């Protein structure tokens, strides 16, 4: 399978000259299976750009099918959904998997986001593409030849935050975002879930030394430790802090690589960037 990042920023979009190389759109990652299955992990503002590209193909003719795997419904993971033309073209099909919140189902959250006080779409009923919502569970399922496993790793107030593991012919991609390792059990579950992944995409907004109140989000060092403990091959840091410049990210990655080299660690680490593609 192939991965392409469309949005890598956390919290809020940051269209800024000092952040252009890594990019300012919020979380959206596209995965394409070897047989053409298209799976999108979260629909932050990066989804708008992905939608523009999809418009050039089957989706522009109302014949596209897209599976969305939503980790949770905070803004930076969902706000891009209603904007691209492809979701308004009848005939296109959206299969949306994600968690319900104790304050409402996934479908209700999307419907509320599109209600007229917030959006000129006036509700989900007016999204032209056929859409089906499925509450995610830990039961593995397939999308074409991709096997999907999901796990509710941590939660924030009423919202559980799920991680996803995609497998195809022995190749493994794991996506862990917005996790809070406030209990050792959660860290152990993450390590087991990411075991032997070829690629781990892990949210990593801040370093431990940065004194930022960040709702208990995992730190960059957590991502490294989990990846190492799980025997991950490549770690992609993701969900970058809104104020992090390209040069700062470069420096962080260089330092992490130097530290891994001194430990003789086989782990490869990079910071995810908008437009970056990789083969799992």
């Amino acid at each position, binding site marked *: 399978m192939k991965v392409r990042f469309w949005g890598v920023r956390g*919290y*809020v*979009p940051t*269209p800024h*000259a000092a952040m*252009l190389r890594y990019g*300012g759109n919020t979380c959206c990652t596209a995965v394409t299976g070897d047989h053409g299955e298209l799976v999108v992990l979260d629909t932050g503002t990066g989804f*708008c750009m992905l939608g*523009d590209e999809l418009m050039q193909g089957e989706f522009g003719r109302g014949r596209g099918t897209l599976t969305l795997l939503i980790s*949770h*419904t*905070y*803004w930076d993971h*969902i*706000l891009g959904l209603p*904007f691209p033309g492809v979701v308004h073209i009848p005939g296109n099909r959206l299969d949306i998997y994600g968690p319900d*919140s104790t*304050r*409402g189902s996934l479908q209700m*959250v999307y419907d*509320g*986001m599109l209600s*007229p*006080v*917030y*959006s*000129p779409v*006036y509700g989900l009923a*007016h999204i032209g593409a056929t859409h089906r919502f499925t509450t995610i569970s830990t039961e593995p399922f397939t999308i074409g030849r991709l096997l999907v496993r999901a796990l509710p790793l941590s939660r*924030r*107030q*009423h*919202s559980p935050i799920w991680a996803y593991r995609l497998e195809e012919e022995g190749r493994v991609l794991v996506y862990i975002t917005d996790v809070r390792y406030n209990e050792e059990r959660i860290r152990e579950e993450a390590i087991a879930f990411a075991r032997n992944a070829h690629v781990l995409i892990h949210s990593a907004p801040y370093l431990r030394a940065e004194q930022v109140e960040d*709702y208990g989000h995992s730190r960059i060092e957590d991502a490294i430790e989990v990846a190492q403990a799980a025997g991950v091959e490549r770690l992609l840091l993701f969900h970058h802090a*809104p*104020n992090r410049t390209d040069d700062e990210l470069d420096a962080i990655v260089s330092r992490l690589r130097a530290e891994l080299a001194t430990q003789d660690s086989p782990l490869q680490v990079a910071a995810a960037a908008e437009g970056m593609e990789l083969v799992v």
Partner: protein
Amino acid sequence: MLRYGGNTTCVEVVAEGRHIILDAGTGLRMLGDSFAQEQAPRQLDLLITHTHWDHIIGFPFFAPLFDPNLKLDIYGLARTQSSLRTTLAGALSDPLLPLSMDDLRAQINFFEIGAGHCFELGPVQVRTALANHPYRALAYRLETPDGVLTFIPDTGPFHTVLFGEERIEWTGQPTARSQSELRELAAMKAAILELAYRADWLIYDAQFTDAQYARFPHWGHSSATQAREIAEEAQVSQLILFHHDPHRTDEELDRIVAEQQALAAPGLLVTAAFEGMELGRTL
């Protein structure tokens, strides 16, 4: 799109030390961060045109919300369906963000206002009118000691579609055809022209090209041509095209400004808003 910028709607007005903010799009986060670097104001007024996402999504990321020394007055359109406070609270609380209004430390007051409302914010006289936009939106006129600024970031023109609470099902034909609807559109336009009358600066919706407007009249946005025509009718000094389409490149905007300037009535300066643009002496 970097020269004009990619943040959504947020404009700061400073008049004799009074800070007034127009809309709370993603630009608001950077405005909040800029305060941290200097003397942060103790009082801010936030005037909201409407609560579509691109006008409020910066609100939860506005650092001064957590400053207990700040007094923040928020003005927005009174609605029967939901309060302004409830709408903003919904944008920052679970399951969309892990905050609640109780987490905000600033002293926040909400003022729900309507069209034709007049009030004073220190040295600034504010007046409102209704714009022609889905689910309705306000427009503001600010008469400051340094000049008059009129802010109409989201409005369709006043001849094809009349927007209200209900969604418009666009069939390819103009929907506002009854006499009462045409009268209402004419009245709305008259109020908008009055709001912009002889303004020094008119910030106006110019999302579309004329060709795009013809395809999407039910979106509630205007073309640059329509913006210029309003500016001319209202005898405005400077038109600032605003609410650029997400796909509009810097080069296209340069070209649109040149085209509209070439067509403009004598005395009208046509410009396009860009991030960091400043107008007026102290504005």
